């Protein structure tokens, strides 16, 4: 049975097969097209990738920009990047992650649960967050303000004030609409029951899952990985609750896929989940760990992890703002011009949907080879019956394909990115 999935970033085709009990026993995931960004990049001057790569994706292009910058800087091996630039890159990427989460929740998930789509509830906070990126980077989407050696801007105390107000506004919005809680303690909760008696769209959604006894729905391997280490996210992998810090990019393998334009991705030959739930597991966020303990890597945990990331990132973003030193530079011109650089580099960040990896090979500043592995490739790898991908495994055993669609979308699918 075939189901077309729409209103994700792009479209996908799910081909379900059922066993004798009318339960899903396999799902073939197909993405329709590819735009060959990697080939477009070949033979172009290195810095042009900073302009082309944000155009991989309209909703998470900024993650592609930061990954590109890091991959190019990695080709230098020892390049000096000012601390202010590192802070701003993290900050604007945080903003992008959050605008994405709001859109996912209100545009993709709620309508699946029988709610009308609340367009403005998504756009109100996402517009504020886009504005905060624009204060630093000039515009959103599709700025290229981060470049080899730093960032192009030179922000002032007034800009910091503006951004602070925007962050406060989003926090207020979150507390008013998603999780209504007077106690201001909600970031320290350790127990799911602490929040389920509150109000707000997030809580109502979680309760709906409980009422339908869906809170265990959509479980997969319970294998999580995070590569994009930064001042907030911890990299590492976690299997059930065993955490290991040692990761090696060389163990990531990409395989082409017979039925789909998207390539499959494994770490040491195993499929892993990436994204907010993985990040919360690696960051040992008590509330999410509790959800995982009770309901596993279910849709319930995924939704909670994704939306609960917003107040964490808002708080952390304010700390980042405090660490800026306006007397210090935002950009340090690299000692060697990029046109003289030959070598290869990795750039890895946490995007909204999880780990995003860029690999580049330069010869005299010209791109010889470019490779992008997106989060959706991890989560939506199209495996075989014997070796199912993460989202495939999560859909097995369901009998209702509408529920399967919710499971599928709980990974926040970006077909656009995946078919770069």
């Amino acid at each position, binding site marked *: 049975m075939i189901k077309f999935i729409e209103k994700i970033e792009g479209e996908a085709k799910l081909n379900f097969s059922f066993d004798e009990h009318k339960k899903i026993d396999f799902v073939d995931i197909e993405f*329709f097209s590819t735009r060959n960004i990697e080939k477009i990049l070949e033979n172009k001057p290195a810095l042009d990738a900073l302009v082309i790569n944000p155009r991989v994706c309209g909703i998470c292009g900024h993650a592609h920009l930061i990954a590109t910058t890091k991959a190019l800087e990695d080709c230098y091996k020892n390049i000096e990047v000012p601390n202010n630039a590192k802070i701003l890159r993290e900050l604007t990427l945080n903003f992008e992650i959050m605008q994405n989460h709001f859109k996912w929740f209100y545009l993709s998930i709620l309508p699946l649960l029988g709610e009308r*789509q609340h367009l403005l509830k998504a756009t109100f906070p996402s517009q504020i967050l886009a504005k905060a990126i624009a204060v630093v980077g000039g*515009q959103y989407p599709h700025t290229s303000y981060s470049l080899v050696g730093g960032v192009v801007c*030179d922000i002032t105390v007034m800009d910091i004030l503006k951004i602070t107000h925007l962050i406060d506004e989003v926090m207020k919005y979150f507390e008013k609409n998603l999780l209504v809680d007077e106690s201001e303690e909600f970031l320290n909760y350790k127990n799911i029951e602490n929040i389920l008696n509150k109000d707000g769209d997030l809580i109502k959604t979680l309760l709906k899952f409980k009422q339908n006894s869906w809170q265990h729905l959509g479980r997969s391997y319970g294998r999580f990985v995070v590569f994009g280490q930064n001042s907030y996210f911890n990299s590492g992998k976690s299997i059930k609750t065993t955490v290991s810090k040692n990761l090696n990019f060389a163990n990531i393998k990409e395989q082409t896929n017979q039925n789909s334009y998207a390539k499959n991705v494994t770490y040491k030959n195993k499929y892993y989940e990436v994204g907010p739930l993985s990040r919360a597991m690696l960051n040992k966020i008590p509330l999410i760990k509790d959800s995982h303990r009770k309901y596993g890597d279910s849709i319930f945990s995924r939704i909670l992890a994704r939306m609960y990331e917003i107040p964490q990132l808002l708080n952390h973003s304010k700390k980042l703002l405090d660490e800026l030193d306006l007397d210090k530079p935002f950009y340090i011109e690299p000692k060697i011009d990029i046109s003289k650089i030959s070598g290869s580099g990795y750039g890895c960040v946490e995007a909204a949907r999880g780990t995003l990896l860029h690999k580049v090979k330069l010869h005299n500043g010209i791109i010889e080879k470019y490779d992008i592995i997106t989060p959706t490739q991890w989560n939506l790898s199209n495996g075989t019956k014997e070796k199912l991908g993460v989202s495939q495994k999560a859909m097995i055993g369901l009998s209702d394909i509408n529920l399967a669609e919710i499971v599928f979308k709980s990974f926040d699918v970006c077909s656009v990115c995946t078919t770069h």
Partner: protein
Amino acid sequence: MYDKKLKIIWLTAISCNGNSHSFLNYPHLEQFIDDFEFIYHPLIYSKYSLQDLINKDIECDILLLEGAISPEFKKMDEPIINLVDKYAHKAKKIITVGTCATFGGIFSQSDYAYTTGLHFDKENPTFLFKSLKHKTISISGCPIQPEVLANTIYAIQKNMDLKLDNYLRPKEFFAYTIHNGCTRNEYFEYKVDNHTFGKKEGCMFYEHGCQAPYTNGSCNKILWNGVNSKTRAGLPCMGCTSPDFPKQNLFKTKKNMGIPQNLPLGVGKRTYLTLAGITKAFSIKRLEEDLF
């Protein structure tokens, strides 16, 4: 007079969805969705699905096309060309949303054969949909500015007579250059050419490839996200509204023996060099120093 809302189909072809997301940043979205109905949209709730669009015959007033087209590209196994053909003929007006839909843009370099905009392959006219040219408005930009799209749609609703340029773009928005309104204008006027990144001072035209003086658009007139622009922030204009976007070597000004290859729109070489020669002879202390 407008007792019924105009029905809009937003169709995406070979694209990154950047225009869809940029449009979600339109500040008066609430009013907009009161005034118009998206009967199909890739993200926003709509009466019809993409499958309906393919299988049914739906009436629409305005067709918005995002992304480049190619005879090889399909949406759910349906050639995009067929979809465009079907709804473009029904629609009273067509808007090509973004540089890809208008000129082919970045994805004209993808592997699909004959990837172009609806009416242009870079600056050259194409012929497949020539008969629709009279009812098309182009809005280039990678991505589009939300207000530019919204107010063009309102202009259609109100039957306004929009003057268009040679690429069918509304002159209201595209008669200006990106340079108009840039906060770094003084550095350009007085040819202070010592720009480095990470500074609020300096002009990117001389060294860092800024295309603002010869690119059409309203980026510094209608600010992005209501607050800023690339050039104000310190990022060169990449010429994303132009037929040949993206050019190559975007962070470097192409010069021939020190003279920029591309000069400000409509400014002759001798005019430019005379002015540059005069201003460069003087040094203006205020502009050589940091603002504060």
